[in-house]
C-alpha cells in the first residue's frame, strides 16, 4: 500500500505542474492499484538532443498501457528505454529511473546489465522481424539462449506459446519451414510468440500493427486482449481507435513530455488537457 501512496503523491505534485492536467493530479481516479513498473523523472538524450523530459509514469500490472502522441513526441523513445534498446547505439544517455516491481531495481541505471533487463522485458517491433530460421527455431531462440535445449521442453513450450499467439493451428504442420513463408500478420504473431516464450515480465509493443492490414490487425488486437490476463503490456500506437479499443491506461505525450495519464475510457470521453483533446479528436498530430 505504501507503494501506491508514494506513486499517488508523486503524481499529485509533478515537476511540470503547469503542463500536467487535472486528471493526472486526481490520483484517486487514474492511478492503477498494482504496479509492474514505474517511470520516475526519466529524461533521455540522443547525443545532444533531449528526447524525453522528466517523465513520470506508472505501469499497471497485467494491464495494457498505451503510449500515444504525434510523431516525434518521444513515445517510441520511452518504450525503448524499458529494454535499454538505446544502449545499442553510441551517444545515448538516460537520466532518472525506471523501476521494475516488486524488487524496485532501476533498469536504466548504468550498473545494470542491459542483457539482464532484456531477459525480463520482451519486445515486438513495428515491422515483423522473424529470424531467417524455421518457425520452430524462431520461437525456440529465446529459450535456447537461456540454456533450455532439451527437445521435449522446447517442443512443449513452442506449442504452448504458438497457441497463446493464436498461430498454432496455422503452422503446426510446417514448424520446420521458413518463417518467411508466413504472411505479414502471421509473422508478427510469430514474433509475439517468440517474445512470449521466455516468459517476460513486461512486453513492449512498438506499433505492432502498423505494417499490417485491418484483418491481421484485428487478430493481433484480440491477442493482446487475451494476453493481458497474464502479462503486462506497454503499446505504442498511432491509432487512437486502437488505443481506445485495447488499452486500460493511456499516456499522452507531446514534445518529449508526458501531458496526461489516466484510464483510457476516461481520457477518451473526458480529456483533462486541451492538447490531449485536440490530439484524440484529430485536430492535430
Amino acid at each position, binding site marked *: 500500500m505504501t507503494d501506491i501512496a508514494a506513486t499517488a503523491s508523486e503524481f499529485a505534485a509533478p515537476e511540470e505542474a503547469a503542463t500536467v492536467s487535472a486528471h493526472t493530479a486526481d490520483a484517486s481516479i487514474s492511478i492503477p492499484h498494482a504496479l509492474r513498473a514505474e517511470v520516475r523523472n526519466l529524461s533521455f538524450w540522443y547525443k545532444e538532443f533531449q528526447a524525453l523530459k522528466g517523465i513520470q509514469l506508472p505501469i499497471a500490472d497485467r494491464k495494457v498501457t498505451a503510449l500515444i502522441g504525434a510523431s516525434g513526441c518521444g513515445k517510441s523513445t520511452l518504450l525503448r528505454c524499458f529494454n535499454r534498446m538505446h544502449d545499442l547505439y553510441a551517444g545515448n544517455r538516460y537520466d532518472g529511473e525506471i523501476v521494475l516491481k516488486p524488487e524496485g531495481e532501476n533498469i536504466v541505471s548504468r550498473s545494470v546489465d542491459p542483457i*539482464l533487463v532484456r531477459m525480463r522485458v520482451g519486445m515486438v*517491433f513495428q515491422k515483423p522481424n522473424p*529470424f531467417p530460421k524455421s518457425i520452430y527455431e524462431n520461437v525456440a531462440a529465446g529459450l535456447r*539462449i537461456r540454456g533450455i535445449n532439451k527437445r521435449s521442453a522446447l517442443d512443449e513450450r513452442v506449442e504452448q506459446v504458438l497457441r497463446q499467439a493464436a498461430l498454432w493451428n496455422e503452422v503446426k504442420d510446417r514448424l520446420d519451414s521458413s518463417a*518467411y513463408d508466413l504472411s505479414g500478420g502471421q509473422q508478427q504473431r510469430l514474433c509475439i510468440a517468440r517474445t512470449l516464450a521466455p516468459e517476460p515480465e513486461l512486453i513492449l509493443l512498438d506499433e505492432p500493427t502498423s505494417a499490417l492490414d485491418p484483418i491481421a490487425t484485428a487478430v493481433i488486437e484480440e491477442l493482446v486482449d487475451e494476453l493481458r490476463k497474464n502479462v503486462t503490456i506497454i503499446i505504442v500506437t498511432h491509432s487512437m481507435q486502437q488505443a481506445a479499443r485495447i488499452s486500460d491506461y493511456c499516456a499522452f505525450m507531446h514534445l518529449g513530455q508526458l501531458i496526461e495519464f489516466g484510464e483510457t475510457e476516461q481520457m477518451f470521453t473526458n480529456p483533462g488537457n486541451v492538447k490531449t483533446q485536440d490530439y484524440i479528436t484529430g485536430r492535430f498530430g
Partner: protein
Amino acid sequence: MSVLLFLAAALSVVVTTSIVYILVSESWSFFATIPLWTFLTDTQWTPVFAEPRYGILPLLTATLWSAGIALVIAIPLGTILAVYLSEYARPAVRETIKPMLELLVAVPTVVYGYFALLFLTPLFKQFVPGLAGFNLLVPGIVLGIMTLPYIVSISEDAMRAVPGALREGAYALGMTRFQTAMRVIIPGAFSGITAAYVLGMSRAVGETMILAIAAGQNPNLTSDPREGAATITAYIVQMSMGDLPHGSLAYQTIFAAGLTLFVMTLVFNIIGFFLRRRFREVY
C-alpha cells in the same frame, strides 16, 4: 547507347568462351596422345625429359597443399575478423582497419613471394626443423595472408547487409553480441560468406607468383609441406617462359594443366553454389 552496352556485355562472354575453347581444344590434342587415366594417376611430371612422364598428381598435390594451408589460416581468421568488424568494432575502428586490410590486396604478389622466400622462410627455419629453402608451408601461410582481405571484406559486407531489425530483434530477446553474431548474423549472411570462401579458394588455387618464387619449380609428389614443390600455376609460368615449339606435346601440357586448374575452380564454385542453396537463410 544500348548497342554499346550490349557489345561490352558480349565482349566478356566472348572472351570467356574463347579462353575455354582454347583450353579445351589444345588439351584435346594432348589427351589424344596421353590417356586421361595416365594423366590423373601417374606420379611423375617430367614432360621435357628424355623419357617424359605426364602425371599431374605432383602439381595437383602442391596446389592443394598451398591452397589448403592458406585457407586453414584465412577462413577462420577472416570470419572472426569480419564478425569483429561488423558486430563489435566502433565505426571509427572499422573505418580504420577495413581500408588497411583492403590495402593488402594492393600489394603485388611478387612482393609477397620474395617476402616468403627471403624473410619468412629463414625465420621459420629457426623453429620448424627440416624446413627446406623452397617449401610449401611458408608460401601457403603468405597466401593465406593474401587471401584474408578478400574473405574479410566480402563476408563483412554480407554481415552488415543483414537488416538492423534482425539485430534489434536478437538483442531484444536478451542475446549477447556473440550470440547475435553466431545465431542470427552469420546464418543470415551465409550466402555472402560462402561466396567469400569460394572466392578466397579460387584466389588461393590460382595464385602464381608467390608459389613460383617461394615453393620452387620442381614437380615433387610429397606429403610433407616442408619440402618444395611446383604447383600447377608455377609449372605453367615456367613453361610459358621457355621456348617450347608450338604444337609440341610439351607445349600442350600447359593447356592440360590450365584446364585442370579451371576444372578445380569450377568444382569449388559449384560446391559453393549448392552449399548456398542448402544453407542459405533468406531474409
